[in-house]
């Protein structure tokens, strides 16, 4: 994967001793982490391990959470949530344009919708979209802002398996074209391996495993085994 090598020297996200706790219970316990610019990273972890807490810290959405540590992140950050979080009272295009300024905002919005395959649905209401379509609109909304860093919190968690596969391809394609740094939170080991170049496992408030993924199908099984072991899951024999 040569395209991003010259950028790898300048990390997009830098965490030093990042700590976050809720009511005295430490959820993130001194995380040190660099996310190189343009890298696609997946974050695995059990439910409640603090994945969302970490993502929200990087997104700057945790004003009221107690914690310490240093954090640098790019100016232009977009977030995709598990729910599409489209405003039900705005049409799809207006949802994509939410918070966007400038004369050619609308043109950009239409282009972004076309890119995620929602051409012609600009004037639909969010309630008229299927789950997959809504999530694609959410993806368009975050891409239209040309983010340096794209944070996604289990964005495909609520989708059916077939839709999810198509969304994987779409996300990977969009990443290749726009090259933002991506931090994708997921609880799905296979999704992490398919999408990411690097997989982190969050365990007891720290990064327990940091695994580089070669885009080469041969090693998949081995990655899977190592990640599942790091998550404390033993696969049944057979």
């Amino acid at each position, binding site marked *: 994967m040569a395209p991003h090598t010259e950028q790898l020297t300048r990390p997009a996200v830098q965490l030093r001793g990042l700590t976050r706790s809720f009511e005295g219970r430490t959820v993130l316990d001194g995380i040190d982490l660099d996310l190189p610019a343009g890298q696609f990273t997946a974050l695995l972890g059990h439910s409640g391990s603090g994945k969302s807490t970490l993502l929200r810290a990087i*997104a700057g959405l945790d004003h009221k959470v107690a914690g310490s540590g240093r954090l640098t992140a790019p100016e232009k950050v977009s977030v995709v949530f598990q729910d599409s979080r489209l405003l039900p009272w705005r049409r799809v295009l207006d949802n994509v344009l939410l918070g966007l300024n400038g004369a050619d905002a609308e043109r950009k919005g239409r282009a972004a919708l076309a890119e995620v395959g929602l051409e012609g649905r600009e004037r639909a*209401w969010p309630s008229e979209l299927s789950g997959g379509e809504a999530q694609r609109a959410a993806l368009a909304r975050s891409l239209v802002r040309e983010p340096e860093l794209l944070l996604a919190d289990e964005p495909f968690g609520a989708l059916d398996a077939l839709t999810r596969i198509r969304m994987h391809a779409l996300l990977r394609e969009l990443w290749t074209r726009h090259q933002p740094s991506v931090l994708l939170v997921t609880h799905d080991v296979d999704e992490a391996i398919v999408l990411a170049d690097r997989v982190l496992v969050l365990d007891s408030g720290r990064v327990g495993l940091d695994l580089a993924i070669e885009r080469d199908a041969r090693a998949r099984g081995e990655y899977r085994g190592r990640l599942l072991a790091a998550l404390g899951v033993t696969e049944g024999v057979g």
Partner: protein
Amino acid sequence: MTTTTPAVLPVRAQEEDQPVRRRRRGLSPGRALPASRLIGPALLLALWAAASAAGQLDPGAIPAPWTVLRTAGRLWSAGTLPTDILTSLERAAYGFTIGLAAGVVLALAAGLSRVGEALIDGTVNLNRAIPTLGLIPLFILWLGIGEAFKIAIIAIVVYVPIYLNTHSALSGIDSRFVELAEVQGLSRLRFVRQIVIPGALPGFFVGLRLGVTGSWLGLVVLEQINATSGLGYMMFQAQNYGQSDVILVGLLVYGIFGLVSDSAVRLIERRVLSWRRTLSS
């Protein structure tokens, strides 16, 4: 002997003169009947007319519909009915407009700022705890028995439900949307305009409908108790002279006011909240 239902229903459904859709009990109430809201009143009217024609009703207590209509026509051409209607409408319109404006402004002030909330919310709830009609004697003392006190009472009856519903909708804004607004970098003004206010509109409309009903209720009570002009005055006089047909004309006009205004609010609500897909759409 029990047999399992053969799984050929969809195939059967495509046979001749079978609908292409499989039958399934629909749980939404189905399509609205045309002018469905008028069916009930029309039926009642028919019963009344039938009973009058059959001589089952004492014409002194409940005159026949046609008597009421004839009386209405007479009062109309004499010019007293239009004047009374106009007087009443004017009161309701002023009171409603002031109440609407006050309810919305106070709800915005209390819903969008902590200081506003501290100053306003408790005060309004205190106001709500006092039955508004109980304020009538005090308001007559303060404002005299003219128009001002009537308009003030109607305004209070209207602003309370509008304030309460709008305020609770404003402060009940989904925290997920707050988060979204932060992520998208919305300014405070844009956040309010594009997320808080549209999100509070359904609540506002609940309050608006209660307010409209309240304005007529306030009007009727004020005009019945403290009538010096208007529809209520007309009815009050009629009571003294035992003219039940005139009283019914008054009630009829009140009823039309209520029906028309409620329909108007519903129509506006449907247009403004067209993004909502509910059972009734």
